[in-house]
């Protein structure tokens, strides 16, 4: 380790050091307020360090982690999502008995795992990041001490995510057996000395991508998603839908970029089928839902399906940086709108309630009872639909442009059909919210100031980036190294 390594690793060291600090803090002085403040401070320091380092040239740390603009952008996204989750969770868990300090500790730990995946350049780093993220998430999902749904969701996630992790691991072992290396750049280089053992190599890639498809909850590996999203506490669901998916996607995209695995026809065909199935299946199944959390779960399946267009474009386009740009812009939009939607569910719920405000009846007439919440929810849903002047439109526009450039018409048709179906169920929630009357039987918890403040900021940025996206796009372009933004 040399000085430059430590400089490049500064955001990671800040988070890791912060975790130790939080752990000591929680054992000596229990105070939720102090814990929340320290969590936000640690995350903000790390975000600042990410911002300082974003212009630096790419730095490879002993083949293990590759710290560059790509990793920095994803890290910034993950840290911001973690801050939002922490603030939302504070109001959500208020009034709940028992210890809640460890929640923030686990949240920061999960963020560290996601950040590791964003910079992973070696299968061991992927394994470490993925498991730090997943194991923290098992506990976060089952954090509540009462009630059956969180426990059931945590157990389901533990078993199924464990199976997916081991599938990925077995794939990695087969790839290692076939090529003799675990480093991405060596897997990618054509002049790497060892001849590939094709059968093992393909089987390994297949298993690896099966595990990834599960983690990204692509149809037909999506069965766990609605159950876990429904059972998990609302703020954790938001985190699960954004950071956990984003981290896996960051790894897959980097892996595809460096190793050129999508040039193998079988792999790209299978991914194409998954993408089309996810776009159509996710949207069609969302039509049947009367539970807002499940509805958003299916919608997130469809959105990751859209995102696969950018991933598949890596194997098609001559300039793969365009695909990276589209992915990151899309993910920024997806993070914002998903956090906003789950944030509204969080603000309307409390962990002392039997279940979260997830039944669609809880939203009847929300405009007349909680106008601000309803406006933010409407903005988020319009953005998820992809209505112009929201960030969802910019994001989807980018995907369509990328897909058109790569001539991937089947995927674009699926996207258009899927989006058309999606209009129906997003609008249904909006219509329910403007209906008069109803909801009297439903009592929402008192207003949470910090949660609402966060939501207002996200809601405004949904509109701001939708109306005036060029600063965001320029920033993404300059960070990943596209000249002349």
């Amino acid at each position: 380790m040399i000085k430059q390594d430590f400089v490049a690793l500064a955001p990671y060291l800040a988070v890791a050091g912060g975790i130790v600090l939080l752990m000591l803090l929680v054992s000596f002085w229990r105070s939720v307020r102090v814990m929340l403040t320290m969590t936000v401070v640690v995350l903000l320091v790390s975000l600042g360090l990410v911002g300082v380092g974003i212009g630096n040239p790419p730095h490879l740390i002993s083949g293990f982690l590759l710290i560059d603009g790509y990793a920095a952008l994803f890290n910034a996204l993950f840290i911001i999502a973690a801050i939002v989750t922490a603030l939302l969770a504070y109001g959500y868990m208020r009034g709940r008995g028992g210890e809640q300090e460890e929640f923030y500790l686990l949240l920061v730990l999960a963020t560290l795992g996601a950040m590791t995946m964003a910079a992973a350049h070696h299968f061991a780093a992927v394994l470490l990041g993925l498991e730090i993220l997943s194991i923290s998430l098992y506990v976060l999902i089952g954090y509540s001490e009462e009630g059956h749904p969180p426990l059931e969701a945590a157990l389901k996630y533990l078993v199924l995510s464990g199976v997916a992790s081991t599938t990925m691991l077995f794939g990695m072992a087969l790839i290692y057996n076939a090529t003799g290396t675990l480093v991405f750049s060596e897997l990618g280089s054509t002049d790497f000395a060892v001849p590939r053992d094709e059968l093992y190599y393909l089987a390994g890639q297949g298993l690896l991508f099966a595990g990834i498809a599960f983690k990204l909850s692509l149809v037909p590996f999506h069965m766990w998603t609605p159950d876990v999203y429904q059972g998990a506490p609302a703020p954790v669901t938001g985190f699960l839908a954004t950071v956990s998916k984003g981290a896996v996607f960051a790894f897959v995209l980097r892996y595809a970029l460096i190793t050129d695995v999508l040039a193998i026809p079988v792999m790209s065909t299978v991914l194409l089928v998954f993408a089309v199935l996810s776009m159509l299946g996710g949207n069609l199944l969302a039509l049947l839902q009367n539970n807002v959390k499940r509805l958003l779960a299916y919608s997130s399946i469809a959105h990751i399906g859209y995102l696969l267009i950018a991933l598949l474009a890596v194997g098609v386009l001559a300039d793969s940086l365009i695909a990276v740009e589209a992915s990151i812009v899309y993910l920024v939009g997806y993070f914002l709108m998903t956090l906003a939607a789950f944030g509204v569910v969080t603000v309307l719920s409390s962990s002392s309630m039997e279940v979260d405000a997830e039944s669609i009846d809880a939203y009847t007439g929300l405009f007349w009872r909680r106008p601000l919440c309803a406006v933010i929810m409407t903005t988020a849903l319009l953005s998820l639909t992809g209505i112009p002047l929201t960030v969802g439109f910019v994001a989807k526009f980018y995907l369509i442009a990328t897909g058109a450039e790569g001539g991937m018409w089947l995927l674009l048709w699926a996207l258009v059909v899927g989006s058309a179906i999606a209009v129906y169920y997003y609008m249904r929630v909006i219509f329910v919210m403007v209906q008069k009357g109803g909801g009297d039987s439903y009592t929402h918890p008192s207003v949470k100031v910090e949660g609402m403040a966060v939501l207002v900021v996200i809601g405004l940025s949904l509109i701001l980036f939708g109306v005036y996206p060029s600063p965001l796009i320029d920033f993404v372009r300059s960070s990943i190294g596209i000249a002349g933004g």
Partner: protein
Amino acid sequence: MQTAIAVPIEHVLVLAAALFLIGFTGVLVRRNVIFLLMSLEIMMNACGLAFVVAGARWIEPDGQIMYMFILSLAAAEVAVGLGLILQLERRYRHLDIDAASELTG
């Protein structure tokens, strides 16, 4: 020193794949949560075995290092899993995973 593999690599990989499938089948058919965790453990160890034999093929320590990673991760996963099992036992008074299936729709 000569490479000390007397057993062909394919045989060990077949063994690892068999272990992996046994674990996977266990996850599918077993209903007791403790057995589910044990099946997961078998799958993890199958991965570890595959890594070790691949490392031996290339005469590198990487495979064994990965195995050590896998071991520690399996321990962490089981620790959390056992914690959840304690909660399951406390709330449902038994360990049948099928009973915990209220989330549908």
